């Protein structure tokens, strides 16, 4: 059982030594694979599959934080990501002379700050409700945003949206180059993953999980549970905004279609498909989703590829409500039981 004392130093070893000791072989293998992945694949696989998985995984990770640890299923995470993308275009400028043309080191933090602030406001509104009502309110926020950007030409350029959005040079490194962009996405996704994992055992994360399990008891311990939930929305909004920034750079454009109901629901599907109990779940879900999104169409045609995604989603959720992570746990538990069973059968 995990505890607040996990990762707490019991010896005088350095942090690095502890970190190295706690690394499992599969972590090392996964990190090595992620690092060499763009070197063994081509441009399409690097960006369309690799980078897109990391980007959608990061946005879904923000939902995992809210739903898995906080018990709040929000359908507006892609809206927040989309707002960050729109603000990058509005502040930084897009093709056709649109936008304010601020330098990237001002436009990008401002865009992320606006999206995080918006997420906090969504939190303030939605934490007054629970369960299905939270889903409905956040869906309403998403739909309202979609129709607003569709009709507003002054700020959001209405139906046309913005195009020609490319990542800036960072310390002289060209982020538009496929491998560099992939590693940038990997760094952001890795940061998000480690942050959420670390927070799960920090007082904030521990309290968030306790609020999910028993809000009344948390109030009786002196916690302001509404404030805690709003803070979770702000943090999740920050992660979604980082994902939105990468998404707009990958696509090179943003329009109302990018924040419509279909992509909104996709984030929920990704999170549930992978599993919302652990921060790795959204990335697994994103990988399955991206592969299906790219290849199902070639297998059975453009009309029915959504049916394939839907069927696979149904099958996984039917067998394991906790997504692929749940399936993996079931498989692991069965493997662990098997040697014990065989010893028992021999004894009989």
């Amino acid at each position, binding site marked *: 059982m995990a505890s607040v004392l996990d990762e*707490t130093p019991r010896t005088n070893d350095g942090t690095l030594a502890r970190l190295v000791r706690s690394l499992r072989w599969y972590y090392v293998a996964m990190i090595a694979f992620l690092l060499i992945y763009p070197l063994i694949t081509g441009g399409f696989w690097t960006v369309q599959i690799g980078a897109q998985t990391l980007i959608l995984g990061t946005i879904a990770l923000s939902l995992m934080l809210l739903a898995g640890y906080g018990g709040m299923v929000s359908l507006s995470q892609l809206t927040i990501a989309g707002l960050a993308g729109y603000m990058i275009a509005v502040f930084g400028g897009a093709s056709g002379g649109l936008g304010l043309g601020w330098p990237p080191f001002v436009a990008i933090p401002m865009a992320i700050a606006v999206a995080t602030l918006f997420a906090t406001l969504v939190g303030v509104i939605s934490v007054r409700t629970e369960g299905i009502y939270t889903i409905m309110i956040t869906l309403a926020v998403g739909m309202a945003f979609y129709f607003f950007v569709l009709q507003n030409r002054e700020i959001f350029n209405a139906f046309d949206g913005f195009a020609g959005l490319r990542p800036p040079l960072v310390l002289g490194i060209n982020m538009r180059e496929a491998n560099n962009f992939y590693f940038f996405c990997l760094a952001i996704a890795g940061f998000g993953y480690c942050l959420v994992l670390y927070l799960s055992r920090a007082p904030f994360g521990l309290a968030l999980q306790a609020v999910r399990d028993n809000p*009344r008891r*948390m109030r009786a311990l002196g*916690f302001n549970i509404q404030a805690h939930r709003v803070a979770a929305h702000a943090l999740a909004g920050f992660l979604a905004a980082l994902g939105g920034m990468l998404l707009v750079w990958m696509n090179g454009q943003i329009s109302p279609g990018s924040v419509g109901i279909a992509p909104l629901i996709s984030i929920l599907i990704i999170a549930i498909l992978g599993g919302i109990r652990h921060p790795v779940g959204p990335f697994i879900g994103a990988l399955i989703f991206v592969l299906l999104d790219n290849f199902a169409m070639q297998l059975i045609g453009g009309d029915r590829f959504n049916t394939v995604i839907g069927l696979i989603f149904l099958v996984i959720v039917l067998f394991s409500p906790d997504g692929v992570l749940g399936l993996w746990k079931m498989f692991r538990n069965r493997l662990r039981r098997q040697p014990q069973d065989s010893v028992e059968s021999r004894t009989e």
Partner: protein
Amino acid sequence: MATVQPVKARSAAAYALELQGVSRSFGALKALSDIDLRVASGERRAVLGANGAGKTTLFNAITGDFPPTSGRIRFFGEDVTSLPAHERIRRGLRRTYQSSQLFHGLTVLDNLFLAVRGVSRGRFSFLRPTRNDSSLEAAEEMMETVRMTHLANTSVSELAHGQQRQLEIGMALAGAPRFILFDEPAAGLASAERAELITVLDNLPEHIGYIIIEHDLDVALRVVTYCTIMHNGALFKEGRPEEIEQDPDVQRIYLGGGHG
């Protein structure tokens, strides 16, 4: 209704808890009606009554879980009637619940750590606690007090009923409480565990007052100095344990007889 007299006349600030005309209705049902109650600082009081008398509703009104429909509540002289539950807790009020309200997915240490952190700084901290974190040390001390150190990393879902009740008490005692509301702490405990509970309650620091709701009169009347009897959502009688024990009206309530 019998006239209710306070233990002795004191100045307002000397009372840990002061309720004036507190009522609570749920639709047409009046669960609490016009409660006047004063409990001195450090006083140990039992609130007794049959099921449905309004004892737990009284606790909920005091803690702010269900704010009163009318009336005022003062905690150490401060009017807390309009304060949310968590603000009352931060002022030193604590409670336990009739059925254990613990975090079953977390460990014993996590539960106590949250109880300490809830009333101290760093509730929103993003940093994991270090070994010499004051909240962690306080949580470990509390584990010793309620004799659960050997269960520190055990999930609450794996604890026996008696251990869960013990942990409930530990959580109520965490973080320098000034006044505690115990809601049937002996419910479901074996006789040895009840004896241990009495020891814990007797050994509480003198400045910590409490109200205990308890159907087991052997426990309740042994640990308190004064009793309040509730009946049909109203205060019915007050007195010292020995007076209450002999009172025929009280016996009638407990035996289910009608009250005129």
